[in-house]
C-alpha cells in the first residue's frame, strides 16, 4: 500500500541520514553542536606543583559556551599552559593534555559513567604540573623586565621535573580564550604578525639555537669518558687553524688560555682545547656522549612536543673542531641545554624531562602519577667523571661575571656566547648560562638563553647577560638571595 511505501521510504532515508551519513554530519566542521558540547563541558584545571596554584581554570559564562577559560598570570605561564581558543583551537599543554582536560581520556571513563548515571554536568580531569611558581616568576620577571627575547628552563636534575619554562616575549592566553570574536581575532593577529616578535613561539622547547660554549660540557664529558683527566695538559694557544682549511678558530677575545690543564680550559672556557678534544675524539664518540645527554631525540614530549636538538653531521675535522665548542651545525633547545647541566648534576644520568606531575580526577583525587624515568637508560658519563666535571663547573662559576652571585647557592655553571647569523662577527651573540645548584646536592638545573645579546649587543657574553637570570631562578628555588 501507498502508506507502507511512504513510511518505508522515510525509514530508509532516516537510516541513510542517521546511520550512513551520521559521522559525516556529526564531524562536519560547520556542526557547532560538538564544539558547544566540548566548550560546555567544565574543562579541567591546570595547577602548579608547589602549593597548588591554579594556572588555568574555567569560570561560568552567561553565554552558549557556559564556561570561559581564564588564566592566572597568563603571560608568565603561557609557554606552560598554552591557550584554549574557540576559533583558533588549543595550543601548548592545553592541546597536549586535551583529552584529560575535556574529560574524554579513557582514564576518566569511570567518572564519566557516573556523571551519566547521576546526570551531573560532565567535567574534565585536572592536570597538576611540576612547575614551581617561585622559579617561574623569578625567571619571567627578570626576562620580561629587561625586555629580553629568550627562554629559561629549570628542572630537578634527579627527576627531570620541569620547575620553570619561560619564553619571552610572551602573550596573554586570556585574550585568545575570550568569547568575543573580535578580541580573539585581534589577539591572534597581533601574536602571529609576520616579522613581529612572535610571542606564541615557545622558545624553551620549540626553537633551537647554537649552544656555544655550554656544549663544552658534552665535549668535556666525552673527553673524560675517553680517559682524559682534569689535569690533562691542553694547548693554551690563542687560536688554532681548522684542519685542511685556512680558517682560524680562536679563544674568546683572541686571548691565550690562562691555564694549561683541562680544568683550566673549562673554567675559562678556552675554545682551542675543546676544539682539539672534539677533533681527537671523532664524530662517533662525540655523538655517543651527546646522544646520552638527550641530543638527537626527535620524539621527545613533555607532553608538548620538543624540537629535536642535533649535533649536526660533523663530517670533517673542521666541522668537529667547531662542533666541539657548540658552533657550526649544533643546535639545541633551551630545554636540552638545561639537560646538559641536569645530567652532570645527576651523576651523569639524564632524566626524562616532564612537565606533568599527575593527572587528577575532577574531585582532585590522583588518577595517575608520573614517576621519573631515565631518558636513554645509559649514563652520558660515569658518576666519578660527573663529579670531576661538576668541580670544573664550580670553578667556571667562580670566573663568571654578572649579577646575583651568592656563594651560599653553591652554583656549578657553564656560560656560552654563541655566534650566529650570516655575519656572525657583527651580529650580537646569543648569551647562554647553564647551571645547577647546590653543587653538593643538586636541587635545580637551569638553562637561560638571551637572544642576540639582550641589552649588551656585540659585547654580550653568557656571564654578563644570562647568568643573573639563572642565578635568580636558582635563588628562588633554594630560598636564598
Amino acid at each position: 500500500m501507498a502508506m507502507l511505501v511512504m513510511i518505508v521510504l522515510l525509514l530508509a532515508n532516516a537510516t541513510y541520514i542517521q546511520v550512513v551519513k551520521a559521522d559525516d554530519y556529526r564531524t562536519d566542521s560547520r556542526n557547532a553542536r560538538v564544539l558547544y558540547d566540548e566548550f560546555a563541558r567544565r574543562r579541567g584545571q591546570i595547577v602548579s606543583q608547589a602549593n597548588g596554584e591554579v594556572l588555568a581554570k574555567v569560570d561560568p559564562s552567561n553565554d552558549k559556551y557556559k564556561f570561559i577559560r581564564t588564566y592566572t598570570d597568563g603571560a608568565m605561564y603561557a609557554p606552560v599552559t598554552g591557550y584554549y581558543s574557540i576559533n583558533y583551537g588549543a595550543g601548548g599543554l592545553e592541546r597536549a593534555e586535551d583529552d584529560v582536560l575535556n574529560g574524554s581520556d579513557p582514564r576518566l571513563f569511570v567518572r564519566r559513567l557516573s556523571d551519566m548515571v547521576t546526570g551531573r554536568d560532565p567535567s574534565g580531569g585536572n592536570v597538576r604540573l611540576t612547575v614551581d611558581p617561585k622559579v617561574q616568576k623569578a625567571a619571567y620577571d627578570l626576562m620580561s623586565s629587561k625586555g629580553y627575547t629568550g627562554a629559561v628552563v629549570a628542572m630537578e636534575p634527579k627527576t627531570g621535573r620541569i620547575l620553570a619554562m619561560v619564553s619571552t616575549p610572551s602573550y596573554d592566553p586570556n585574550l585568545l580564550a575570550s568569547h568575543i570574536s573580535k578580541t580573539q581575532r585581534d589577539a591572534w593577529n597581533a601574536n602571529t604578525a609576520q616579522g613581529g616578535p612572535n610571542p606564541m613561539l615557545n622558545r624553551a622547547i620549540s626553537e633551537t639555537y647554537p649552544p656555544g660554549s655550554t656544549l663544552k660540557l658534552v665535549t668535556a664529558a666525552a673527553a673524560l669518558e675517553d680517559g682524559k683527566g682534569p689535569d690533562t695538559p691542553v694547548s693554551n694557544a690563542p687560536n688554532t687553524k681548522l684542519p685542511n682549511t685556512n680558517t682560524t678558530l680562536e679563544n674568546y677575545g683572541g686571548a691565550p688560555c690562562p691555564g694549561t690543564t683541562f680544568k683550566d680550559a673549562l673554567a675559562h672556557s678556552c675554545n682551542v682545547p675543546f676544539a682539539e678534544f672534539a677533533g681527537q675524539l671523532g664524530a662517533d664518540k662525540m655523538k655517543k656522549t651527546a646522544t646520552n645527554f638527550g641530543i638527537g631525540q626527535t620524539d621527545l614530549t613533555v607532553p608538548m612536543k620538543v624540537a629535536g636538538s642535533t649535533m649536526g653531521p660533523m663530517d670533517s675535522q673542521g666541522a668537529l673542531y667547531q662542533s666541539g665548542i657548540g658552533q657550526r651545525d649544533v643546535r639545541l633547545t633551551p630545554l636540552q641545554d638545561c639537560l646538559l647541566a641536569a645530567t652532570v648534576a645527576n651523576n651523569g644520568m639524564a632524566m626524562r624531562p616532564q612537565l606533568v606531575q599527575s593527572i587528577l580526577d575532577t574531585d582532585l583525587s590522583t588518577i595517575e602519577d608520573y614517576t621519573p624515568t631515565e631518558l636513554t637508560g645509559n649514563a652520558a658519563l660515569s658518576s666519578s667523571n660527573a663529579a670531576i666535571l661538576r668541580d670544573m663547573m664550580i670553578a667556571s662559576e667562580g670566573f663568571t661575571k654578572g649579577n646575583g652571585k651568592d656563594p651560599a647557592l653553591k652554583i656549578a655553571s657553564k656560560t656560552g656566547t654563541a655566534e650566529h647569523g650570516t655575519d656572525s662577527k657583527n651580529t650580537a651573540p646569543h648569551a647562554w648560562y647553564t647551571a645547577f645548584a647546590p653543587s653538593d646536592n643538586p636541587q635545580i638545573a637551569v638553562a637561560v638563553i638571551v637572544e642576540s645579546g639582550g641589552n649588551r649587543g656585540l659585547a654580550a657574553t653568557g656571564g654578563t647577560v644570562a647568568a643573573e637570570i639563572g642565578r635568580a631562578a636558582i635563588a628562588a628555588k633554594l630560598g636564598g638571595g
Partner: protein
Amino acid sequence: MAQPAVDALSAQFQTNPPRELPTRRNTELLLLAFAAFIVTSALVLVEANQEQELTASILWLGLAYLGVLTAAHLAVRKWAPYADPVLLPCVALLNGIGLVMIHRIDLAQAEKAVQNGKDFSPDVTKQVLFTVVALALFVVVLIVVNDHRTLTRYGYTAGLIGIFALALPALLPRSLSEVNGAKVWLKLPFFSIQPGEFAKILLMIFFASFLVSKRDLFMVAGKKFLGVELPRPRDLGPILIAAFACIGILVFEKDLGSSLLFFSVILVMLYVATERAIWVVLGLAFFAVGCVIAYNLFTHVQQRVQNWIDPFADADGTGYQMVQSLFGLGTGGVGGTGLGAGRPDMVPEAATDFITAAIGEELGFIGLAAVLMLYLILAMRGMRSALAVRDTFGKLLGGGLAFTMVMQIFVVVGGVTKLIPETGITAPFLSKGGSSLLANYILVALLLRISDAARRPAARPKPQQQPQAPIAEAHTVLVQRPPAEGGASA
C-alpha cells in the same frame, strides 16, 4: 452499501445481544496507562538531563496526563464502546512525546532568553491547555456525531465552509494572516488559528459525500488511448478544480506542504471510490505540471527546491535550517544523544515544523523510527476500520482521514530528512500549535466513530431465522395458521 434502519434494530438488540463482542475497552485503558508511563519517563529524562534535579511534581504531571487520558477513555467507553482500542493510545503517546519535546525545547529557549536578557514565556503551558481543549472537543465530536453517516447531509455545507476557511487567509490582508512568510493564519485578538487545518477535515467530508453521490460520474468511460480508458474531458472538471485550488494555496498562501497534502488526499479518495488508477496518474500529472509552473514563477518555491538539492550551498543562509536539521539528526545517530542532552534548539522552529528533527537528534534513529511506526499503526488501524465499515461514505472518509495522517508525516519527516523539499507543515499531535492539535483530535474522534461503527455488532442473528425451516415449508405454515395468529393477537 448503507443498510437502512440498522440503528433502530441495533438499539433494540443492544440490551440483550445474542453473543457478546469484546469491546476491548480495557485493552485501551491499559495501553493508555502504558503511554502515560512512557511520557512520564521521558519527562523524567528531560528533567534529569536539563535541570539535574527531580521533583515530585513530575509524578503529578504524569498522573494528571493519565487523568486527562482516562477522561477521554471514559468518553470513548460511553459513546463509542466498540471503537478501535489502539487509536487513542497511539494518539496519546504521540501527543505526550510532543509535549515533552516542546517542554524540552522551552528549557533551552528559556536559557537562551536569560542569556540575552529577554523575557520568555514557555510554549508548553499553552500546548497543555490546547491538549485539554482538544480532548474536550474530541469528546464533543464523539457525542454530537453519534453516527458518521449523518455527516453526508452536511457534505456541501462542509465543502463550502472548508473552501471559505481555506481561502480566507489568502483574501485577508497580510497583517491579519501572515506569520513567518506563510499566509495561512487567521489572527484573532487573543489567539491565532490556522483555518486550513480544519478545512482539511471539512473538505474530506465534502469530498467523501460528493464521491458517494456522484461516483458514477467518474466511472463513465471515455475514449480509449493506448489501451487505457480515458475519462471524458467534461468529467475532468472536479479534479481540475481541486488541482487549481491546491496550486492556489501554494501560490497565495505560500504553503507548499498543505497543497501537497490536500491534493494527494483527494487523489487517494478518488482512487478508493473508483478503483481506477487513471485518476491518480492524471492527478499526479496535473500536479507535476502545476509544480513546474509554480517553480518557474515563484522565487520562494525555487529557494525551497534549492535547499533540498544542496542545503550546504548556503549553510549559514537559506540552507541553515536544513543543515542544522541534518547535523542534529547526524549527531543523534542511531541511539540519539538522550532526551535533554542534545541541542535540538539549534534548529529554527524546532518545536513546530522541525520537531521530528528534535526527536531524531535526542532519541536517535530508533526513536524516530518508533514515532513513524506509531503513525503507521494509527493509520493502518484507521484504514482497517475504514475497510470494515459497511457504508461507502464511511469507507471513503475513514480512508481519507487515515491517509492524511501518513501523508502529513511523510511531508514533514520527508522535508526534515531531505527526502523531499522542506515544506513547513506540522506533525500531527507532536508539533506545537493549537489549530493542528484541535483539528487532529477531531480527526481521530471521527476515525474512532467510524471504527466503532465498523466493529459494532450490527448484523445480529435475526429471530425469524431461528426456526431454520426451509422456505417452502415456512410458507406452508404461514398459510395454515393466520386465523389462530390473528385471534391470539386480538
